[in-house]
């Protein structure tokens, strides 16, 4: 299959979807000139009525998307930085997410929110580095975070076609990554995880850009006789419970490897699920790796103590191996 970069895959997906469905339009900031690259060429192709730069009024344009969705459109909202979700928070979690339920099913709110997910990009500092997904998941919003170019396109298709609000996270670290991408609009369904590497010693549940990190670590650890089973949930909500259970049972030793703040974050949710429902499968404690719960410091030197990397994972797996002679198990 032909290879595209992750950002190109999103761009192509948007273009094809917009060509298919005149009700789709995109709002955001600097999206006509495509500052972030995801909407490149779309304003020229579809016009400024469908690729719309908004004033710096995130709450209002998020709400506008809700009202447009309720009246028959299928809006896509691109947030230039994750934190813009904080400014629009009421409109996201208290309006868009609640209207279908509160009206007793009288309406749907088919909006896709494209958020940058941070990770591995230094120098963005405290207010441009947050991962918004645990906040949105707590409110019950569907969340996807593709880990490769092919999924980037396939999950975008699923997100935009979904009749629910869906938050789509595109990690900065992946935008330039290349991978095979189908030419057509092939949906990767919401709620389906993927085993990205078979292994037998430890199961790593890895999110977004950390999937690739995990594969690198897996290659390293292979040499030491430790075999990682790597599972990519792809959709964080709804979770693929069957896929997750199988991944847990595969080894009985689990690390959840995520880049959102640890406290009430995604890793905790998964760890709690496992500890409650597949306790019998566990051979030891469920390990969590997440981001330290502080604003990301500017200095790249300090970053390493805050934002998890493959190195963090390696240490955790090695310490598990140490206490359980995993090498022998593998």
């Amino acid at each position, binding site marked *: 299959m032909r290879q595209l970069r992750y950002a190109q895959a999103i761009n192509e997906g948007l273009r094809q979807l917009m060509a298919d469905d005149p009700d789709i339009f995109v709002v955001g900031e600097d999206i006509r000139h495509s500052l972030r690259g995801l909407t490149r060429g779309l304003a020229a192709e579809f016009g400024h009525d469908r690729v719309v730069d908004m004033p710096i*009024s995130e709450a*209002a*344009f998020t709400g*506008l998307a*809700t*009202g447009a969705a309720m009246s028959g459109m299928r809006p896509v909202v691109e947030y230039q930085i994750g934190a813009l979700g904080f400014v629009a928070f009421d409109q996201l979690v208290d*309006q868009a997410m609640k209207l279908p339920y509160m009206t007793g099913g009288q309406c749907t709110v088919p909006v896709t929110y494209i958020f940058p997910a941070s990770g591995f990009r230094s120098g963005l500092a405290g207010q441009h580095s947050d991962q918004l997904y645990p906040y949105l998941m707590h409110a019950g919003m569907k969340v996807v975070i593709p880990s490769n170019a092919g999924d980037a396109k396939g999950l975008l298709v699923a997100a935009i076609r979904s009749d629910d609000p869906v938050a789509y996270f595109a990690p900065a670290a992946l935008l330039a990554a290349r991978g095979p991408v189908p030419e057509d609009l092939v949906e990767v369904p919401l709620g389906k995880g993927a085993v990205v590497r078979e292994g037998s010693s430890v199961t790593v549940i890895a999110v977004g850009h950390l999937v690739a990190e995990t594969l690198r670590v897996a290659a390293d650890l292979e040499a030491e006789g430790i075999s990682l089973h790597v599972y990519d949930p792809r959709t964080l909500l*709804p979770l693929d419970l069957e896929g997750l259970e199988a991944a847990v049972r595969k080894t009985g030793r689990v690390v959840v490897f995520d880049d959102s703040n640890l406290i009430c974050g995604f890793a905790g949710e998964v760890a709690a699920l496992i500890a409650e429902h597949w306790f019998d499968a566990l051979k030891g404690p469920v390990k969590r790796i997440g981001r330290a719960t502080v604003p990301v410091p500017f200095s790249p030197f300090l970053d390493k103590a805050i934002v998890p990397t493959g190195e963090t994972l390696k240490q955790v797996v090695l310490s598990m191996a140490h206490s359980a002679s995993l090498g022998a198990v593998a």
Partner: protein
Amino acid sequence: MPGLQGRQLLDAYRAMVRIRLFEERVRDRVNANDIPGVCHEYIGQEAVAVGVCTALRESDVITSTHRGHGHVIAKGGATNRMMAELYGRVDGYNRGKGGSMHIADVSLGIYGANGIVGAGLPIAAGAAWTSKRKGTGVVAVPFFGDGASNQGVVHETMNMAAIFKLPMVFVCENNLYAISASFREMSSVEHVHTRAAAYGMHGEAVDGMDVEAVHEAASRLVERARRGDGPSLLECKTYRLVGHFTAEQALGLSYRPKEEVAEWTKRDPLLVGEASLLRQGVASAEDLEQVRAEVAAEIDAATEFAQASAWPPFDEALAHMYADATAARPMRGW
């Protein structure tokens, strides 16, 4: 633009009476612990909802507020389904899931009451967006209060509506208070409508106790929006003749001078409407009495309908969260 004439005027009066009697009944039932929670009564502001909604088509869209019953009734909502909603029953508009603060009839263009002050404005802008893109001629009208005028999202939405020339009429119901806080203290300007200038938008004020005046102004502004001449802001000077909500009496708050309440009570929109009907010879005192009796019977029937309606099926508690088969996460397990 001709004002409300003859039959229309009587219908408008009927709608105002419907709101008044509905609200009085609701208050009674809340205080009897028959309706759960609290409700924000629309009593005193009837001329605004009715004056504005008589200027709208059924396909036009409104967003409402925490004080939403009047808007829903004026836009054509059925009092029996509304009452059933307030009772939390399955025949309610929202199948009992919304209650007073979230009551909606999307098929009538009522995009919902809203528990968050100001939050409806951008949602209305979205409906206006669709109208503009699809050329349906729909006009979107968000109602909001004087207190809401100080919310950030109100500013953002007005700017946005102005730059995209969205077909909207922003209707501010300035009833002089946001709960216990007076508009005079909380706003840096004397009138909300003058803020329209900050968006290069047309703004005007109207006597919100006079349904004919409201209708006239709203009709002009709605037509303007429908023609493609962009949004405008209509400030309706009104007053709530009762407390902020059904619980207020029990709280014993006192933040409004008695004389002020008395003064505005003289301008009760129902009195103003009746006087006009009689003066214009559209209806006799007996006609008005008949309207009131008919509406009272309707409200009785609505209440009985609500009380007779079943609870929502228990397994609907987790339904409607997602449009597809995705299961909502329950209290334990999944």
